[in-house]
């Protein structure tokens, strides 16, 4: 999956004032790359990720996925792309609290209508891959923070996405667990050739990324 943006802008209105969260961003994400977007809090990292993850609509500018203009797609088609071609990892994990680890991972598979047996086998495989085969039936509140993020990564991988979009995936983790999660993301990128886009403060991620962007006041710059 290749993602390209041209003059991508997102403006929020807060009462009388306007906030330009993303300002004329031109970005190109190629297949199988590991991209880090770095910037302080409130710089527009998350907004940019939501835009390229089709979770938000730009005020101006365009997003192209494999050269197809997203603005021409219906909401239903965007959902289908999110479901089948993208995986999301959130800073706060966003696991469904009433489901156990296995069910959380099965959820995206169920949404595609895959048979029950296939869902279960795939979810078991993914949880084993992230080292959680002994925590299958634990609910999120019974898991450690690191385990929750692993479940979230397994969930993001469920439908074999072409891109994983991770919003500060190590933001809530201690340094040891953060290191493990970073290693996991790199592993996925290298072995599965899955594109990974990470918004982060974490220098360990920045050091290892193929491409680094910095963002300040919504303006994106290529660092290397």
């Amino acid at each position: 999956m290749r993602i390209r943006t041209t003059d991508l802008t997102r403006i929020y209105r807060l009462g009388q004032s306007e906030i330009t969260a993303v300002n004329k961003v031109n970005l190109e994400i190629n297949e199988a790359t590991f991209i880090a977007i770095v910037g302080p809090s409130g710089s527009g990292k998350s907004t940019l990720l939501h835009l390229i993850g089709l979770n938000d609509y730009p005020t101006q500018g365009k997003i192209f996925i494999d050269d197809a203009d997203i603005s021409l797609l219906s909401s239903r088609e965007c959902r289908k792309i999110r479901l089948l071609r993208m995986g999301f990892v959130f800073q706060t994990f966003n696991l469904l609290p009433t489901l156990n680890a296995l069910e959380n991972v099965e959820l995206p598979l169920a949404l595609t209508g895959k048979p029950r047996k296939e869902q279960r086998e795939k979810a078991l495989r993914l949880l084993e891959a992230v080292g959680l085969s002994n925590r299958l039936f634990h609910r999120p509140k019974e898991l450690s923070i690191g385990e929750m993020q692993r479940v979230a990564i397994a969930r993001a991988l469920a439908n074999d996405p072409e891109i994983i979009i991770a919003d500060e995936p190590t933001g809530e983790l201690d340094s040891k667990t953060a290191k493990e999660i970073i290693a996991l993301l790199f592993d996925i990128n290298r072995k599965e050739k899955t594109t990974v886009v990470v918004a982060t403060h974490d220098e360990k991620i920045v050091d290892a990324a193929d491409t680094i962007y910095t963002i300040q006041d919504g303006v994106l710059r290529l660092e290397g």
Partner: protein
Amino acid sequence: MRTVLCIIGVALATTFVIAVGATTMRYTTVIKEMNVLFSGQVMVVSKDAIIIQAIPIGGSMLPQSSTVEKIKNIAGVEKTVPILFITPIDIGGILQPVPVNFSMGIPVEDWQLILGPTPLKGNVGHFPTNESSNEVVVGASLADQYEWSVGTKLNFSDYELEIVGILTTKLALLNRCVVMPLKLAQKIYSSLGSVNIITVKPLQGYSQKNLTDTIEEQIAYVSALTEDKRNDMIQPILAQVETWNLGIQTVVFIMSLILVMTVTLMSVSERRRDFATLDAMGAPLSHVFRLVILETSLIGVLGGALGIFFGSLTALVLASLYTNIPLAQFFPSILEFVPPFYMLEIFVTIIAVCCLGGIIPAINATRMRIAEVLRAEY
């Protein structure tokens, strides 16, 4: 916890609807049944009689012989049966807020005409054959309540009566009735030579309406009522009762809908991050919508099932309180009291109401966007 309270709220609403509905239905059914005994016949009562359907509950008596003779001489009359109908009868000095015990005196040769082919319990015993005997038959419900059986002796106003048969019937009126020969009833109730109903069977092809007009024209002190007229007299009251019942049900269902909607709106609002996550994962809107509707319909299923159970019990308790008939006696006939179709109707309605109550919260849930939710949280 909130969902549990919501289920309890729906259960209470259903309990109320079932209890009120079943009780009302029971009484309207009993009132409608009263006409069954005199179906196809004209009923002659005193002009000042107060009657419900075919049952006189007040007014003067009719002189039996002279009135019957006068009616017999009217053209179009095939058969007349004088009846003494007494309500309520006092058994054991128990005050009855709603009359539940009746007594009927019928000439022995005319029993079949009034009671029809009513069998006797276990085919044991017989109908009284002698007009001046002290033999009576009683309804099964009365017999069960007072543990009477064939051969039991009863003391009624200083007369010793003997039960010679127990009526097996679905008619509530007969189930609670002591039926005896007319002359015996007249002696017991100090009404010698008097009756309060004379049923008149018209000749085949003869109009009931014409017959009643003629009877009232020729006998000044009576009212003659066709079956239609008897129904017409009670119909507006029954219709009003049913309208009130429907009104109460509607109000209760609307309150349930508001309760379910409010609780689900709060629940969806609290779980906005979960719904937004589903949206971010690409879950179809219909999936999110169905999820919320499924939750509210489950509230309906659980609340409805509990409500039907407790509502049916409440209906029986109410009937027992009103009639002084022991609760245990109602249990075997619970499905007659709260018919399965009525239970199903209320169950389906409460589930539909809960689903309706889920629509607005479900629409809200489909509008949760991860970008907005996270932005609002930070």
